[in-house]
């Protein structure tokens, strides 16, 4: 926790991110290269799903990252409201659109996979619908944080929204069990170990690592941009 507070200073965070970004970018490119090679070339086609199973290597990690990204927004919101860390607001501003894009990627790839598998682009299944709602929550967060002339006001309003909306994220995770309809139940994260064959699981996990790294790199990059933007606005208002 002490380390997180240490990074709450924007200047210190900048120094950290300037050093971390090249390393992380390289790691992302490497993991993405290996992951895509494993997912598109090495891994075998599924006996039922055929080649369309490869969509899963992007779809599933995107869903994880979109959900984890919203939890990050909620944590940043709490950090802003409790400790008033100025960096938390800037990072939330940077992270929300990235999470929304991962959410959109999850919905789009799921829809493309659903067409050959379920025979339809979209079904009003509990899990799909709650992912769509998560996307709406992201949109609300983005719109609210940018709706005020005073950016600090928008940051705090969005922080409260993120905390309340975070109640929705566990509902997503457990809605499969509650309604239990068309979407197949969770098969990687469950008690008793994953029920996926290692030939599919390995590329999936490598892709998850790669996309998670990509998320971190994009969020760091956007947070840096937000720091620059805020500094520019301040210097303009002083001048």
């Amino acid at each position, binding site marked *: 926790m002490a380390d997180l507070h240490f990074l709450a200073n924007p200047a210190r965070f900048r120094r950290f991110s300037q050093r971390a970004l090249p390393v992380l970018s390289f790691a992302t490119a490497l993991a993405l290269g290996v992951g895509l090679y494993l997912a598109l070339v090495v891994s075998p086609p599924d006996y039922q799903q055929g080649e369309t199973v490869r969509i899963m290597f992007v779809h599933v990690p995107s869903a994880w990252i979109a959900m984890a990204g919203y939890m990050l927004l909620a944590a940043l919101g709490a950090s802003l*409201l409790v400790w008033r860390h100025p960096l938390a607001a800037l990072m939330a501003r940077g992270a929300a659109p990235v999470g929304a894009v991962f959410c959109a990627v999850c919905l789009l790839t799921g829809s493309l996979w659903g067409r050959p598998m379920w025979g339809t682009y979209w079904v009003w299944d509990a899990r799909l619908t709650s992912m769509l709602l998560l996307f709406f929550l992201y949109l*609300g967060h983005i*719109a609210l944080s940018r*709706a005020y002339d005073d950016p600090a006001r928008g940051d705090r*309003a969005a922080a409260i*929204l993120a905390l309340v909306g975070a109640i929705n994220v566990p509902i997503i995770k457990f809605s499969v069990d509650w309604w239990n309809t068309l979407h197949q139940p969770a098969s990687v994260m469950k008690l008793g170990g994953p029920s996926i064959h290692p030939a599919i699981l390995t590329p999936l996990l490598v892709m998850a690592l790669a996309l998670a790294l990509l998320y971190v790199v994009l969020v760091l990059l956007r947070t840096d941009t937000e720091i620059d933007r805020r500094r520019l606005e301040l210097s303009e208002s002083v001048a």
Partner: protein
Amino acid sequence: MTGFTALMARDLRLVWRRPGDVAVVLAFFVVATALFPLGIGPQANVLARIAAGVLWCAALFAALLSLDRLFAADHEDGTLDLLLLAPWPLELAALAKCAAHWIVTGLPLAVLAPLLGVAFGLEAESLAALGATLLVGTPTLSLVGGLAAALTLGARRSGALLALLAPPLCVPTLIFGASAVETVATGEGFATHLAILAALALVSLATLPWAIAAALRQAGE
């Protein structure tokens, strides 16, 4: 507690003196509901099938429509600043405002919806279920909407923003409210649905006043 009742009585008195504000919301509810048969067609079996969903959605929209002025008037004339300075919890003030909002919108909507349900050809049990679920479910809508109203206080395009923020958070209430009426149509009881709606309302009641108060505090800063 005297502050709570005083604030609620004040809000109710304000509405009593200008009943047009509530009448517009209820008229919107009726008009919006009446559009569905026009758009979908007059087949009685189709209308009876979709009635619960249509009425619940229209009630949700009507509740949202009336919410953008919930705190805005107090914000403009300085009442909100006095509430912030008052020596009793802002959470109670938020709860009083939402309670008054529920009395003037949620309650009339719950009474009006079964009447409109008759026009959609719902059976007597379904009508009772519709009224009961709206009665138990609309407090959640008032509280969630109150939070959205407090968050968008003073924002650009606050009305449109409110309509974007509140619906995703109202979805569980909508799902269980509308499906309760369907369960009745298939001959089962709707006690479970009603219990879940009540649970959602109680959780909202226990948590959202704090969130609304936090939102109002940062609006007053």
